[in-house]
Every structure is written in C-alpha cells, then in structure tokens.
C-alpha cells in the first residue's frame, strides 16, 4: 500500500561534518529515489538547514583535509528538485532571526498552530 510519509527533522548539525550531509535529509533522498512519497518538515534548530550560504569548509586535522564539507542548503535544493515538499515551522525560523530572504527557494512555511493539520495529511509521520 503506497503511503504518504512526512519526515520530521528537529535535531540539527549532530553529525553533519563527519557524514558530509544530514542523515535524515540523505535517507529521504534515497527513499524518494526508491519511489517513496515523502515530504520533509524542519522544526526547531533544523529550520537552519534551509539557510542559504552555510559554509563548513576548511577543516583539516594535521595534513588530513576534509575535501567534501556538507552543503546542507544545496542538499535541500536537490530534494526540492526531486519533488519533495519541504516545510519549515515559521515561528522556529523567526525566533532564530531568519527571514524568508535567508532561505532556500521553495521551502514552505507552516505556522506552529497549523502543524496538526499538516501532520494529519500523511499516512505516517517519521519523527527523527
């Protein structure tokens, strides 16, 4: 039975440098490639993933340089291009000083009080 799944991502920057991406954004892309019907909601600190211009480049330990730093804003852009709807909680963004102009084009705001209606649209909600 095909299901519509909402991925909810709240934890942010836990392992993004070592993994060179966010594991939930990544697995969403992989499951979309496998035919999944998925949307993504960013809440809490994870709303910051939608900020343009994040830069984690330049890390080196001794002579060992990191060649492929995470590019979280680009990863979200790729998800959007695949047809994954990406939402973010408006208040969580505003409280963090974020304005629409700061964010990747195509991410959709949702008010906190409208979250129940958003969640109810999906067959399953996977809260990471």
């Amino acid at each position, binding site marked *: 039975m095909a299901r519509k799944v909402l991925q909810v991502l709240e934890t942010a920057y836990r*392992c993004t440098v070592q*993994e060179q991406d966010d594991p939930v954004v990544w697995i969403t892309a*992989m*499951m979309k*490639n*496998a*035919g999944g019907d998925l949307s993504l909601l960013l809440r809490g600190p994870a709303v910051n993933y939608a900020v343009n211009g994040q830069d984690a480049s330049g890390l080196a330990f001794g002579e060992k340089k990191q060649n492929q730093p995470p590019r979280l804003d680009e990863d979200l852009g790729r998800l959007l291009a695949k047809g994954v709807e990406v939402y973010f909680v408006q208040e969580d963004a505003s409280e963090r000083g974020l304005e629409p102009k700061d964010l990747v084009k195509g991410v959709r705001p949702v008010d906190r009080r409208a979250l129940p209606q958003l969640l109810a649209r999906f067959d*399953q909600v*996977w809260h990471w």
Partner: protein
Amino acid sequence: MARKSFVFVVMDPPYESARSVSAYRLMDAAVRKGHDVFVFAYEGGVSQPFAKQAQHPNSVHGRDTTQEDHPLPKDWIAALQAEAKKRGTRFQWMNCGLCVDERGVAETIPDVVRGSPAELWKAAEAADNILVMGAS
C-alpha cells in the same frame, strides 16, 4: 490480538543513549505479543549487533567479568531473535550497509542482514506500523 508487523528504526550506538534500552523494551514487547518485527539500524545503530563486543570486569563495582555480567547489545538482539523463533514469528535486524562500512562493523551476529534505504521503504510499506527513534 491479531498478529501485526512493525518496523523500528534505531540510530544510536550501544551505551550512548537510553533510547537503545527503550527500543529493546519495545521490540521485546512486540515479540512477546506475537507480532513480527523488522529493525532497520541506521547510523550508529549498526554497531548494536557487532559480533566482537566483549564483557569486562569492573573494579569500581568490585566485580570480575562473570560477576559484572555486562550487557552486550548483540546478546539482547540474539535473545529477541530466539524468542521470535520460539513463537514462530519474525524478527529481522537489517543494518544500513553504508553505515556499516564507514564504522567498520561488518562482523555481526548471525541472521543480521545488510540493506539500504530502499529496503527500509519497502519494509515500511509492507508493515502495519512504524516507529522511528532518531538520534539527538
């Protein structure tokens, strides 16, 4: 109650979060109630069934290795596998393959398989319900 099938997604490595114990408690409850369980271990969760976990003594507790009897998650998983087998239900633990590679934990206890997010998606579609226990 009718037999159902559940997917659990776990991400924590052993010993680093109370979530792991909660996950095992939920899996155990599902198995005891006669349901089928599919576990997709992602990220650090792939270390849970690592075959080379070993017990040790604890001088602070004043206990030798046998007395301390330190829990090893691989043994908890094996016990759940055995319990499901005894009941004639399914308990399948699948490790995310790429997560295994980057952590070097390919040596697992028997009957743990390697898979990908596509297989998680397939399992989730086929199951009655799913609980994702993400890391923080």
